């Protein structure tokens, strides 16, 4: 009977053997799970952050660069259960609640998460000394933006932490990364950000590094963003911003032959130097609350009635449609009076031919022209006439996005026939009802960029190139093709010469902006004094220089600045003179009084509703 019992023992041995073997099969052979887990255990992925592109002006002058900053990062999964939280909090100088809140934001516990950004030296130094005692925590070296001066904030733009939307769209980003939010930082983000690298290191159970994983064969270096030359002219930009101080307004200067933006200045504006490091969020919040809305890039978003500057385009359309010639005259008896309709005009000789109508800015002349264009019997209806007229405007880049390389550009506003149909009733409106459009008033809204762009188009005698703020990216032969597109206006070159003839007399004795003249500066331009519902007229000027082979086109809008000749025109000529001066010599203006007067002028009429 006893010997049967040995079978029991054999059975037990067999059972253990089979049990163990089965378990080993399931652990070792059924999946890669444990192998992957052991690799994750033994290695840490260290992100090598790439330096963002360094930004220069068009002449190679440094505008934006980077500085090294240190962040505290964490892989939540690797935090030890024995973490001495109190000691860590003491070094970090934050309270437990804040700390836990930050930890709770982590969604993926196995990847690196930036916990505290831009450590100040008094935190960084003791933390660096003790970081090994805090398993799972480590210090990451990154770079943050630094700015040479406070100019160009709207065009350069700021960077900020990526949000969930950006992360979900582009797997390149991780929680805590920076990306360009506005300006060219945003548009050219994929260039500017460079390429993050990765270094995988072997770590032991205490997270102490023990050399590189697989001899570094999986590592990749970070590639800094390529150096970038903006098309901005540092000095012109700086002067433009100086002159805008204590005023509300916008200045845009474009190189007509290339579409490159030489300057784009807004007032009010802000200082990018205050938008760095840990103060970024706080500063941003205060800027958002500022009633003058300094973050608003009015140059590409704000709509202004173009006022008399619009007459240049009116004349061009009239010429192209054959309604008028250079010699056509319309009478002006202190304005345009038909029935009960009166459009006033200032005192000037009458009648005027086309070039003189521009030089003297005769309102009546353009009322007649507009009526003749819209009510032209060549069209079946007023609406058709209006539509044809509107098409010309669109071809100048008005009422549509110019396609500038800056985010959130506004369309401006050129009403279509539908707009008037809704307002007056279908076929119940005629040119006399919308006559104010002829002199750039009424419903029309144009952005400062659109104004500068159509000035450039006139300078080019019939075409414009998509405005853009980048002239070169290192390592790339060309900037992206969409910013080099040429837009032809369906108006003959000779008509442009006729209008330019008129514009040439504006900043000249007898012209409306004679006071803005600078010796040796061959300016063509047009003033505008645009009525608006927000108070005193806006002072507006568009123009270019020199007349032949133009190098710079400028649009200036000074809100509630009064006559175009008062502020806008002198500002424009000052900037033109500065741009045309040789860059390698010290600049001395031939009319230094103008710049001083503009710079020091104060328009204390900031009111909230003029800003939107």
């Amino acid at each position: 009977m006893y010997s049967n019992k040995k079978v029991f023992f054999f059975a037990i041995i067999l059972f253990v053997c089979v049990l163990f073997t089965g378990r080993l099969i399931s652990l070792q052979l059924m999946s890669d799970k444990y192998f992957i887990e052991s690799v994750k255990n033994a290695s840490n992925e260290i992100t090598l952050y790439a330096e963002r592109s360094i930004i220069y002006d068009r002449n190679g002058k440094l505008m934006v660069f980077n500085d090294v900053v240190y962040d505290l990062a964490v892989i939540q999964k690797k935090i030890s259960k024995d973490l001495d939280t109190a000691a860590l909090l003491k070094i970090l100088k934050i309270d437990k609640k804040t700390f836990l809140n930050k930890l709770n934001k982590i969604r993926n516990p196995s990847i690196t998460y930036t916990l505290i950004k831009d450590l100040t030296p008094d935190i960084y130094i003791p933390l660096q000394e003790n970081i090994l005692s805090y398993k799972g925590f480590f210090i990451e070296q990154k770079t943050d933006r630094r700015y040479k001066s406070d100019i160009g904030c709207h065009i350069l733009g700021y960077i900020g932490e990526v949000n969930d939307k950006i992360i979900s769209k582009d797997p390149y980003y991780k929680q805590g990364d920076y990306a360009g939010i506005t300006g060219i930082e945003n548009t050219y983000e994929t260039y500017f950000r460079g390429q993050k690298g990765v270094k995988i290191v072997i770590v032991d159970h205490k997270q102490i590094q023990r050399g590189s994983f697989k001899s570094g064969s999986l590592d990749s270096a970070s590639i800094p963003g390529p150096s970038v030359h903006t098309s901005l002219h540092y000095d012109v930009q700086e002067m433009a911003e100086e002159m805008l101080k204590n005023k509300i307004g916008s200045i845009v200067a474009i190189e007509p032959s290339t579409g490159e933006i030489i300057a784009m200045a807004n007032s009010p504006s802000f200082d990018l130097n205050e938008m760095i490091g840990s103060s970024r969020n706080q500063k941003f919040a205060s800027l958002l609350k500022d009633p003058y809305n300094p973050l608003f890039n009015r140059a590409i978003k704000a709509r202004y009635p173009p006022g008399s500057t619009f007459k240049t385009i009116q004349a061009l359309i009239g010429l192209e449609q054959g309604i008028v010639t250079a010699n056509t005259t319309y009478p002006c008896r202190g304005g345009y009076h038909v029935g009960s309709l009166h459009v006033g005009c200032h005192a000037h000789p009458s009648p005027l031919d086309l070039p003189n109508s521009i030089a003297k800015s005769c309102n009546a002349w353009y009322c007649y022209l507009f009526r003749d264009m819209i009510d032209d019997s060549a069209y079946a209806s007023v609406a058709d006439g209006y539509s044809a007229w509107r098409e010309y405007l669109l071809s100048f880049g008005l009422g549509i996005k110019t396609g500038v390389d800056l985010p959130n550009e506004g369309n401006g506003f050129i009403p279509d026939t539908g707009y008037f149909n809704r307002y007056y009733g279908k076929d119940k409106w005629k040119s006399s009802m919308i006559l104010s459009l002829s002199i750039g008033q009424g419903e029309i809204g144009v952005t400062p960029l659109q104004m500068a762009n159509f000035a450039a188009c006139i300078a080019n005698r019939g075409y414009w190139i998509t405005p853009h703020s980048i002239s070169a990216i290192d390592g790339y032969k060309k900037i992206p093709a969409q910013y080099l597109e040429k837009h032809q206006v369906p108006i003959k070159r000779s008509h442009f010469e006729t209008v330019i003839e008129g514009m040439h007399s504006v900043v000249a004795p007898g012209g409306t902006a004679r006071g803005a003249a600078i010796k040796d500066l061959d300016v063509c331009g047009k003033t505008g004094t645009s009525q608006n519902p927000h108070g005193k007229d806006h002072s507006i000027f568009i123009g270019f220089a020199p007349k032949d082979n133009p190098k710079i086109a400028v649009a200036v809008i000074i809100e509630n600045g009064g006559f175009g000749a008062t502020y806008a025109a002198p500002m424009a000529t000052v900037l033109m003179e500065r741009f045309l001066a040789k860059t390698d010599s010290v600049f001395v203006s031939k009319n230094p009084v103008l710049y001083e007067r503009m710079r020091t002028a104060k328009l204390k009429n900031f009111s909230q509703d003029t800003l939107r």
Partner: protein
Amino acid sequence: MSYNNYANSDRTSIDWSIILVYLLLCIIGIFSIYSSVFEPEAQWFNFEMPYAKQLIFFGISVFIATVIIYTESTLFFHIGYIAFVLLILLTLGTFFFGAKVHGAQAWYKIGSFQMQPAEFAKLGTVLALSKFLGTYGVRLDSLKNYAITFLFILIPVGIVLAQNDTGSALVFLSLIFVLYRFGLPSIFLTIGFSFVLIFIFLMLTSRTEQILLLSPKILLTLIIFIILGIIGYYIRFNKKGIILISILFTIYTIFIFGVDLAYNQLKEYQKKRIELIFGLIEDKKDVGYNLWQSKVAIGSGQMVGKGFLNGTQTKLKFVPERSTDYIFCTYAEETGFLGSFAFILLYTFFLYKLVIMSERQNTRFARAYGYGVFSIFLFHFFINIGMTIGIVPTIGIPLPFISYGGSSLLAFTILLFIFIKLDGNRSNEVSVDID
């Protein structure tokens, strides 16, 4: 006394195959220890390191083994009770002169040398138990004899439990197998195993509200009632049968509904270790850290392993107690399934061999001793490997011949070689007293 019957000739035949297995295991152990403490920057051999100490103890063990082979077999029979008393006293001494290691008050510390007397107490217990069972005329047929044998087992169990050494206590309890071989009715083992199965079932269903409209406990009680009923039907109901079945049913019912009470007496970490095994809780950081890292180490070995000295889990110290209780992790991570399976087979052969050898003994003493040795190795093997691969709750006991530890290597060597010597001498014994 049966041992007076030995012939004074030299018909010794040592079984070399088990010695070969022993040597192989020791060598695997030394290499595994070497790998588990390996530092790439350190010199390749350092006398301060555990592998060197293990090598020295291996040398001592071989010497002692040789001495045992040349010792008169009768000595081991005669010293049985004395060894038991001395070694139990030595174990008790830890309460007064001992040191605490890993929470167990079970060690002596002499300089840098540590010794766990419980390892040797196993030897004393097996010797004493075998001597009693091998004593002329002693049979497991009286309550008195059962009481004595259980006393031999339960005294050391009590002591090591008091030392907070649950693992060793289980090892001593495994000597029940010896009693089973010597006449303990199967029903006790059956009840024991069925308790284990019921516990496993209750653990696995502890999150289940009901099965077949019944709570798991009610269902289990019903099943046991049916099984007992069927058994009762086959053995024909007589008065004695009905009483027995009723007693059994009561015992099972008490166990099923009372096991929670006993379970709740366990310490919190012990409960967690058990719940981890059943997958009732997930933990990779706290109580479950060891188990998780151990499973990752073994699992990441895959088919062929990461190669000698290339295990990351063990080299980078993610696995705790790499050279002692979790030594199998180092081995399995670096040799993969092929190496691990070969190891399991080798150990299985070793255990099988011990049963074969025990069965061929001519004396009750030698056979009892053989089964004692077998039971101890089986339990160490089952609990240690089972713990690393996650089928046994974490219980810290060494893997004989593999785990680092001088006293354990020496104790297991002595334990084994006394049996090898007894086996070698079996032809000189007259099997007058065998069942």
